[in-house]
């Protein structure tokens, strides 16, 4: 058990709580940087997918986890980001400006939609955002010059600083690109959370009425959070387009919106870690199920593949269990394990006894 005494205000302001904490993240960074040498191309591709979905999850976490506004339509902003990026690149833009444009377009789209939509709360907000996702789905079929209609658009190869980056030809370069974007966004996210804007988001989530009485312009805070959230998701959409190499309206169905929400709920609403944990589960669980079914087929002769929809069912079961037994998601589990280790012989069973908490969107404001 390590006891760290704070001696300066900076101890609370800094990103890392002391050396040991920093060392942990240095190890994680080293592992991530070394991944292309360790993993084969297939698994590197899966890891890249985890990074991209983590980025999309971060976007949704900002608005749903930290500002308390449910969105069932974030695939719409992935679509806006992806189509903007590809359309501009096909018109001769370089990758980086096109990537920035994806973020800006989705962010602006988010800001425009935010004002009317965020007047609603709870189930009504859920339905409105769901409708948004469906509308964007239809628009991506109709806006053929930009989105390629039903056929969709192919992702042109990326050239960056004189380097050709292609998901299949140079998977490690694409992996590093995604890692770089994700790290930058995460740093910006954490910076916001440790300053006034981030605190105003939390205030809006927990009690709108007292946020307002303390001088938080609630409409503005929600709009900013939604817009930033959409910008991050737009970035993820652009990277996803290059990961998938081709996107059409089917890449961003409502189902993706719902999967994203499940991802942040499984990961743990209201924690940055949660976006990452959730992405790991969402991307890797189908793989784990596939490997397990192969194994069972080979050893016991049980053919799981004969039952279609089993992976979806397992996924659903996991979510059910999660919501019932651990509403704070995988982050909650991780937090408990960490506390248990830190306190080792002194951990008490009732330490994390739950009080009734849920998204307070239905609360009187």
């Amino acid at each position, binding site marked *: 058990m390590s006891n760290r005494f704070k001696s300066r*205000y900076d101890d609370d302001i800094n990103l890392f709580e002391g050396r040991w904490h920093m060392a942990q993240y240095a190890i994680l960074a080293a592992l991530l940087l070394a991944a292309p040498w360790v993993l084969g191309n297939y698994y590197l591709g899966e890891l890249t997918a985890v990074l991209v979905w983590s980025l999309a999850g971060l976007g949704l976490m900002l608005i749903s986890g930290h500002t308390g506004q449910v969105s069932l339509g974030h695939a719409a902003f992935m679509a806006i980001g992806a189509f903007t990026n590809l359309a501009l690149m096909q018109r001769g833009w370089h990758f980086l400006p096109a990537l920035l444009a994806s973020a800006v377009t989705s962010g602006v789209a988010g800001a425009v939609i935010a004002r009317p939509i965020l007047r609603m709360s709870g189930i009504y907000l859920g339905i409105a955002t769901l409708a948004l996702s469906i509308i964007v789905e239809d628009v991506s079929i109709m806006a053929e010059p930009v989105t390629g209609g039903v056929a969709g658009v192919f992702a042109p190869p990326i050239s960056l600083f004189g380097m050709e980056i292609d998901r299949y030809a140079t998977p490690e370069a694409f992996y590093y690109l995604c890692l770089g974007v994700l790290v930058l966004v995460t740093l910006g996210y954490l*910076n916001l959370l440790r300053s*006034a804007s981030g605190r105003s988001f*939390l205030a809006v989530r*927990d009690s709108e009425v007292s946020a307002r009485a303390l*001088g938080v312009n609630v409409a503005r805070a929600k709009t900013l959070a939604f817009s930033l959230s959409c910008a991050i998701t737009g970035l993820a959409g652009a990277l996803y387009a290059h990961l998938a190499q081709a996107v059409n309206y089917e890449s961003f169905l409502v189902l993706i919106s719902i999967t994203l929400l499940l991802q942040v709920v499984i990961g743990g609403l209201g924690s940055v870690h949660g976006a990452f944990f959730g992405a790991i589960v969402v991307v890797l669980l189908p793989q784990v199920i596939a490997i397990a079914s192969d194994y069972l087929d080979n050893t016991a002769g049980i053919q799981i593949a004969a039952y279609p929809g089993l992976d979806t069912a397992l996924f659903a079961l996991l979510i059910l269990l999660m919501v019932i037994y651990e509403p704070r998601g995988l982050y909650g589990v991780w937090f408990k394990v960490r506390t248990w280790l830190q306190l080792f012989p002194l951990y008490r069973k009732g330490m994390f006894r739950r009080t009734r908490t849920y998204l307070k969107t239905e609360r009187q404001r």
Partner: protein
Amino acid sequence: MSLLQVKDLSISFGGVKAVDGVSFEVKAGEVFTLVGPNGAGKSTIFNLISRLYEPSAGQIIFDGQDITGLPAHDVAGLGIARTFQNIELFDHSSVLQNLLIGRHCRRQTRWFEELLFLPKVRRSEREQRLLVEEVIDFLDLAPYRDKLIAGLPYGVRKVVEIARALASEPKLILLDEPASGLSVEETQNMAWWIEDMQKDLGLTVLMVEHDMSLVSRVSDRVLAVAEGHPLAMGTAAEVQANPKVIEAYLGTEATS
């Protein structure tokens, strides 16, 4: 000089006139208390002053400025802070974070500066923290600084909410039933703190409270209201002795 002037304030919800032509003035530096039976409109008056409700008639003048048309989020910046009857803290944040949110109306940085965490942001965070620490010191909250609100006992939460209001550096603090649900000792502490706020910090306090021992102890003036109307004004003893007030609380005496 009066810091807060309320003139002919009225509001109705549907057909119910919750507040009907209430006028009073709060002098700078005094403790002014609103008393009255349940449903008298005391909390509604608070919500009107903090601009959460829109009055149907009347004017609110704070520090020489008419605030009747201001949006609610601009009121804190002018120097009006408040607490709520049913504690409205940010449950999933620590005491420290709650107090820092209390300083939101004094923020000096913009979101894109915060995104990059420029040196200016760090400087401002340190300054804000220093001022928050003064409040923590004032209300003896140091043991709870890093605790989550969700795990704190009720009495402490009451104090944290006052601390959060004080963190915004107000001129006028509105306390909505600061002693409700507190033990005798905690009420005693609350009385001291209200006296300290008035004497050491030079604050003006506008309070709604039912505990008459606390009211008599700290208030300079008391206004009794019932059914949205003002009944009597004066010292705590005068108001308590007023026949109209007694009637409002206990009903009319049976005629023999």
